[in-house]
């Protein structure tokens, strides 16, 4: 079914389809897809992907009978179970959870950091059918854990979440995506950090082979705020991690990190984009990947430094290990710099596991498999050690062991 038919047919359960402004915006988006001009060849967001599978899809969404649960078990600590992208409302003196509103949609549709030809974001804007908004109130220090659950097979979830950290607040956010059914989740996180706020964002992705997860985030940082994101991708299905960050005011910081572990025929597309729009800002983009069997991965990173953004420090690093003959890795670390007093660098390496290191370990009596496993663990050791949450660290170690058990 083509996009337009799909949209018209399911209009009634798509958010904001009565709003005129949004309606006009969506018509424009439909036009993009409708045109034969759809340039697939030079569109980096589509590399290795068969877009047809995502355009000609069967729309299915239901609001589950199971309701979402919000627990405030400890002081300042909340755990949320979101079902099919929905979350019930909640309010206390520290946080507020509501459904997303038209204004959140309109506000975002004017954003120009995400390219017009990012078709997955366009699809999300078109078919939006779930999502919530979390506000962390001034000067609070909060921990939130969100488990995303999908109840049925073949669901197409188009979710948009808004996170707002008010002045002086601090949020520790853990998001879990562990789904075993054949669904597609297209999630857009819009994150706003006010003055002096801080957000540590962890994303643990571990889906079954038939679950597609497309996750895009857009964070914007005001003065003295810090956004840290860590993505751990153990999924066996397709995962797309595209993360955009804007440093709007002086002395803000963005740190985007990711590790992905791929095997079989799996594909993972990754992108990080940091836009420096003010002076004295720092950014860091580090992605590491391990590719086994016939897996494929792409990583695009982009540091954009505006003319006013003097004294910028921007670093990028991408590392890939290919374990098998059939795996492939594509990386494009891009720098676009318009200011002169900056320190920016990037590094990128792709290769096998160091033979000398294997030789060293084998000469000390280890089997080749054991040596390989040790070297893979050491490759990502730095990232694992930097996790200060013990519970998180344990979860990730377990998943790592599971991945390594398949390595020969």
């Amino acid at each position: 079914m083509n996009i337009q038919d799909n949209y018209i047919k399911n209009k009634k359960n798509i958010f904001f389809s009565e709003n005129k402004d949004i309606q006009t915006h969506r018509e424009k988006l439909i036009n993009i897809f409708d045109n034969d001009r759809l340039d697939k060849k030079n569109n980096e967001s589509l590399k290795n992907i068969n877009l047809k599978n995502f355009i000609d899809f069967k729309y299915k969404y239901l609001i589950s009978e199971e309701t979402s649960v919000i627990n405030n078990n400890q002081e300042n600590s909340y755990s949320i179970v979101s079902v099919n992208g929905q979350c019930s409302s909640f309010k206390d003196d520290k946080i507020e959870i509501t459904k997303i509103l038209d204004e959140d949609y309109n506000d975002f549709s004017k954003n120009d950091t995400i390219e017009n030809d990012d078709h997955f974001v366009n699809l999300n804007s078109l078919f939006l059918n779930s999502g919530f908004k979390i506000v962390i109130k001034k000067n609070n220090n909060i921990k939130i854990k969100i488990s995303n659950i999908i109840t049925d097979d073949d669901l197409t979830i188009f979710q948009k979440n808004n996170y707002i950290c008010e002045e002086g607040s601090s949020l520790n956010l853990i998001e879990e995506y562990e789904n075993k059914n054949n669904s597609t989740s297209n999630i857009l996180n819009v994150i706003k950090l006010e003055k002096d706020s801080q957000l540590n964002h962890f994303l643990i992705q571990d889906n079954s082979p038939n679950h597609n997860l497309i996750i895009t985030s857009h964070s914007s940082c005001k003065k003295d705020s810090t956004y840290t994101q860590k993505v751990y991708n153990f999924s066996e299905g397709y995962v797309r991690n595209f993360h955009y960050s804007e440093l709007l005011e002086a002395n803000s910081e963005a740190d985007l990190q990711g590790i992905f572990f791929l095997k079989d025929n799996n594909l993972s597309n990754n992108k990080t984009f940091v836009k420096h729009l003010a002076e004295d800002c720092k950014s860091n983009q580090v992605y590491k990947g391990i590719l086994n069997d016939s897996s494929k991965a792409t990583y695009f990173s982009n540091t954009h430094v505006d003319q006013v953004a003097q004294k910028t420090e921007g670093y990028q690093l991408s590392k890939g290990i290919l374990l098998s003959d059939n795996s492939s890795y594509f990386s494009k670390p891009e720098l676009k710099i318009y200011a002169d007093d900056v320190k920016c660098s990037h590094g990128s390496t792709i290769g096998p596991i160091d033979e000398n290191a294997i030789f060293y370990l084998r000469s000390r009596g280890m089997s080749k498999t054991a040596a390989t496993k040790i070297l893979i663990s050491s490759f990502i050791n730095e990232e694992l050690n930097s996790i200060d949450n013990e519970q998180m660290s344990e979860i990730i170690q377990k998943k790592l062991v599971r991945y390594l058990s398949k390595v020969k």
Partner: protein
Amino acid sequence: MNSETLNTLNSYSKNKYKYGFVTEIDDEKPRKGLNEDTIKFISQKKNEPQWMLDWRLKAYSKWKKMKEPKWANLSFPEIDYQDIYYYSAPKGFEKKPKDLSEVDPKLIETYNKLGIPLEEQKVLAGVAVDVVFDSVSVATTYKGELEKLGIIFCSIGEAIQKHPDLIKKYLGSVIPPGDHSFSALNSAVFTDGSFVYIPEGVKCPMELSTYFRINAENTGQFERTLIIADKGSYVSYLEGCTAPKRDDNQLHAANVELIALEDAEIKYSTVQNWYPGDEDGKGGIYNFVTKRGLCAGKNSKISWTQVETGSAITWKYPSCILKGDNSIGEFYSVAITNNFQQADTGTKMTHIGKNTKSKIISKGISLGKSQNTYRGEVSFLRKANKARNYTQCDSLLVGNQCGAHTVPYIDSKNNTAVIEHEASTSKINEDQLYYCRQRGLSHEEAVSLIVNGFCKQVLQELPMEFAVEAQKLVSISLEGSVG
């Protein structure tokens, strides 16, 4: 081309009978615009055989269906292909300065700084020289020596007449005419260029350069160069010249193909310093060049070295296809942009064979309001076992209105291949500047010294005589923009 020139040219063509040079010049009259007749005219002018004309026409029909590549980080007005002369005007038609006193004094000043001999200055500035001057005789002596070794070094037009077998076999084998729109355009309308063939086992004893070739100064705007190094041979080729060339052409779309067979080595050096446009960004040359080398045989090597300081727009990616096992590709580049210049340059290394190695060193310096982009692709195909790449690209920014960009594409499909890429961007180190100033250098001298040091890794790859001039050129390019 501005409207005034157009009007003048129109009036020339309208009034051709009045001046009475119909009979002699009728055929010589350059025709504007691109169509099959233009191509037939060029082919006929060059006295080409039918197969060559067919080849050109085939490329033209491909070009008609193609669009210009748009991915480069460049902005320029659309090129009107019908507003260009595809066969350079014969002498006497174009106004040429009679002697050096008529040439722009700024140009002369630069020549003197570079230490270029007076006779060469005249050629470069386009003065009509009637006297047989030194380099022609030099050229003939060299030609004799090269012939003894069996080396063929002539214009591509001559090679089409005399060595059709080689041309048929190799022309378009590395850059197919249908590769992209500029290569198709060049294939359809190329007028001049060099042809080099080094026979088996011969090490060319001297650096070959367009300088030595007669008529070098008339190298057309659509240049086509083909260099073939047979088994076990070696050649070093120098292209262009270090001095700014007086040139009225707006569009240059050259194609350069290199083929290295087993154990052969080709070293190709370029110093490009065409007219970059004035301080306000008016005028200047659009330089769209396709350069590609094929390491066809085992143990072959191709090395590109380029110093790019001129042209309003540079669109240039000298590439290597490493097909033979153990072959090596190298790319060394310095690109300096000033005022409103835009450069989008880099390389493409495609590793196909086993144990292939490539090395990329790129230095970009942006000043004024210019934009400088490094764009490079390194790809390891499935069978490129144990392939190795090292890439380093550094950018230096002088002033806060320019931009420096790095866009590397890295693709690995082989798990034994190793690829390393690093890049950095920064401004000139204040401490270094302070140190130099303290020792009595002016601000400008200090910057020039530091920039030269920044580029040293690349400049030292240039052949001796080129390196000295290139160093001076770097200093000249920085002038007026520092402090």
